């Protein structure tokens, strides 16, 4: 069909209003994810075609309004709305609670935006409420749609109304709310600013909207008007005992209350909340909260790694068989068998774990538990300068850092997200376990448990220290106090959960996969240069590199090229460290070789190094992707390398010092 053109739509709404579900319903799989410019908050865009238009939908972060400057999400949303000026804004509201949810659309309407109001969760609202949406539409002068995004009801209608709103664009006069006792001041200031500006400019100025104030400053007699605004604010505060922001917000809520009374009729009461409160009294209980959280995390782990493990192994075996079956020989064969296929394998073995992880996380989010978990863990995490929500990704890090870092998507604040991402590599993932098992069984027989525990604890302690340090270095003064809505518990919707899981998994495959794959091929090339050497042997380029860096490892007690090469390969994937040592010491047997080359002390220092140094490429790739910054990625690599080196040297040197007199 001939395209009539583009319509740019922004999707706004409270967190938990069902915005994601509406977005997924509208765009299906035609979406892609990126980051908002300059920040680490996820930006989702998608499109659908309807009635000859191509409609491009941008999902804004979940927000409550546009006034709170401390909230990065509100800043992003506001910047997008004012600078990109989308054709239509769809505001998704939870219609079981119009009193609160209408605040955002009312604020947007005041500013003259072209809105469609989406009364979502209508299925739940209908149980106790009759909403006259025709009347609501008449009063507000905008299209109003009823939807239940979990089943898809009303989505077609929503599409239609978006086109309608686009075609008969409302004038941008804006909704007029009566601010009562502030009206005199508003009128006076409006005359000063100039009647050619919309009234909301004055109201926003009284609310101390910095953008508006800057705009006014630029006017001819800007400085004067600013002074007048200040004087006006002082007068209001003195006269009424509240500052103008508070009065304005109160009046808006007052207007909404009247509006809701006019268009709704209650029938019966909701019992949903009673049940929800009962669950909360157990789940967020002071004593039970943390044990329950621990249990939930335990099961998450079990599902993700125990259930995913066998599937991963199958995939792994399939790849091993596959690389063994590659016909022919020579460089092409070698590239496939030692480069491409292991590369693909490194990507795909993570797939079952990641898909399962996203599945569980989506269920936890959709059911409403995630908000509680964050709340329960908040106090503990605060000591690290982190938000309660960070606890989930960090714990998942013990399984595998890659999905753990992806799980930071659920964090809203940029600071929390970056700090969490930066310390996740210190959570000792399961791929590092084989190294510990090998070395501790050779050198500390009977004490393996203690050794293992000491390494995990070391990781946690370092995470606390590093998070604190980065917090004071890079995020001074940014405190996000805990204010969080706890949505009522809900039965997750299967279809919705699956769609969301798929979207997140696919993204991983596409983006992280590319990087993991390319690095694998690169390492293969390094292992085969100069042409004709035995793969990854002493004479290959990578062997030479190993030799040249081994002196650096001398003070840590393992200054031989095999250790260096195995650590280098460990960057590819930590599982590879043991395997590489195995290849390098092939002829004499691994256990004998390492018991000859290492001492208990240097073995321990080697384990510390393995715990801390550079996260594997997969992790580096997701760090890069998720922080959207090479600088943070470089910092993650360099601090871990430095920290790993310092600690292993420290342990070895101090240990040798105390050991000598005894010997």
């Amino acid at each position: 069909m001939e395209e009539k053109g583009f319509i740019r739509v922004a999707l706004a709404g409270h967190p938990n209003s069902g915005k994601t579900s509406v977005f997924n319903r509208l765009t299906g799989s035609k979406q892609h994810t990126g980051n908002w410019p300059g920040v680490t908050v996820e930006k989702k865009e998608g499109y659908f075609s309807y009635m000859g238009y191509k409609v491009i939908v941008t999902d804004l972060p979940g927000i409550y309004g546009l006034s709170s400057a401390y909230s990065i999400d509100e800043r992003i949303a506001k910047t997008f709305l004012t600078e990109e000026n989308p054709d239509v804004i769809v505001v998704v509201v939870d219609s079981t609670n119009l009193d609160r949810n209408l605040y955002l659309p009312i604020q947007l309407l005041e500013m003259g935006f072209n809105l469609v109001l989406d009364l979502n969760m209508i299925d739940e609202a209908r149980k106790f409420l009759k909403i006259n949406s025709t009347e609501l539409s008449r009063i507000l002068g905008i299209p109003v749609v009823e939807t239940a995004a979990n089943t898809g009801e009303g989505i077609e209608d929503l599409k239609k109304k978006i086109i309608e709103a686009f075609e008969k664009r409302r004038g941008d006069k804006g909704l007029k709310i009566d601010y009562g006792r502030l009206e005199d001041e508003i009128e006076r200031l409006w005359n000063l600013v100039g009647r050619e500006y919309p009234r909301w400019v004055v109201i926003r100025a009284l609310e101390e909207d910095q953008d508006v104030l800057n705009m006014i400053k630029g006017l001819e007699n800007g400085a004067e008007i600013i002074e007048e605004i200040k004087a006006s604010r002082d007068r209001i505060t003195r006269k009424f005992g509240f500052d103008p922001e508070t009065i304005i917000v109160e009046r808006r809520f007052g207007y909404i209350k009247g509006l809701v009374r006019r268009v709704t009729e209650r029938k019966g009461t909701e019992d949903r909340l009673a049940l929800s409160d009962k669950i909360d009294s157990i789940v967020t209980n002071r004593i039970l909260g943390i044990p329950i959280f621990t249990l939930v995390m335990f099961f998450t782990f079990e599902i993700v790694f125990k259930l995913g493990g066998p599937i991963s192994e199958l995939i792994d075996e399939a790849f091993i068989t596959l690389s063994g079956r590659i016909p022919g020989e020579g460089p092409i064969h070698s590239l496939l068998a030692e480069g491409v296929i292991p590369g693909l394998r490194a990507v795909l073995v993570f797939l079952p774990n990641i898909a399962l992880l996203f599945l569980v996380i989506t269920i936890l989010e959709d059911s409403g538990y995630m908000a509680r978990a964050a709340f329960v863990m908040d106090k503990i995490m605060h000591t690290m300068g982190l938000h309660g929500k960070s606890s989930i990704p960090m714990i998942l890090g013990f399984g595998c850092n890659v999905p753990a870092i992806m799980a930071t998507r659920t964090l809203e604040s940029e600071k929390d997200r970056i700090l969490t991402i930066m310390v996740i590599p210190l959570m000792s993932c399961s791929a590092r376990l084989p190294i510990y098992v090998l070395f501790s069984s050779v050198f500390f027989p009977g004490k393996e448990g203690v050794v293992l525990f000491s390494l995990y604890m070391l990781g946690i302690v370092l995470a606390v220290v590093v998070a604190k340090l980065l917090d004071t270095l890079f995020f001074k003064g940014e405190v996000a106090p805990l204010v969080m809505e706890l949505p009522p518990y809900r039965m997750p919707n299967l279809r919705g959960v699956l769609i969301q899981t798929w979207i997140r998994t696919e993204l991983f495959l596409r983006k992280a996969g590319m990087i993991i794959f390319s690095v694998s091929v690169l390492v293969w090339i390094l292992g085969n240069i100069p042409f004709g050497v035995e793969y990854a042997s002493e004479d290959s380029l990578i062997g030479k590199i190993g030799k040249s860096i081994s002196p650096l490892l001398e003070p840590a007690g393992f200054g031989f090229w095999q250790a260096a090469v195995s650590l280098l390969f460990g960057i590819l994937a930590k599982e590879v460290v043991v395997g590489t040592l195995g290849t390098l010491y092939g002829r004499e047997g691994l256990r004998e070789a390492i018991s000859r080359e290492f001492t208990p002390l240097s073995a321990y220092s080697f384990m510390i190094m393995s715990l801390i140094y550079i996260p594997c490429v997969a992790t580096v790739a997701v760090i890069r992707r998720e922080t959207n910054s090479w600088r943070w990625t470089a910092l993650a690599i360099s601090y871990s390398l430095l920290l790993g080196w310092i600690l292993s040297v420290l342990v070895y040197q101090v240990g040798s010092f105390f050991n000598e007199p005894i010997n």
Partner: protein
Amino acid sequence: MGRSVEVPLLFLGPGEKGIISRIVGGFCARARLEEMGLTPGKEVELLSPNPIIVSVDGVRIALGYGIASKILVRTRRRI
């Protein structure tokens, strides 16, 4: 009947209700609180004191101690 007193929300007892009288301090989270409906004049009920969960307009909001000490509410108390 008791007399009306103004206390930080933090000091409400479980199940106790109060009317928000003001939010003190020009601190940055205030705009957020107000957008979420925690404005002067609204009735809040403390559902759980530790950790703090309040009910406003039929929704549940979790609050940190810092912030809960800055929201002042009027409540009736027998003294």
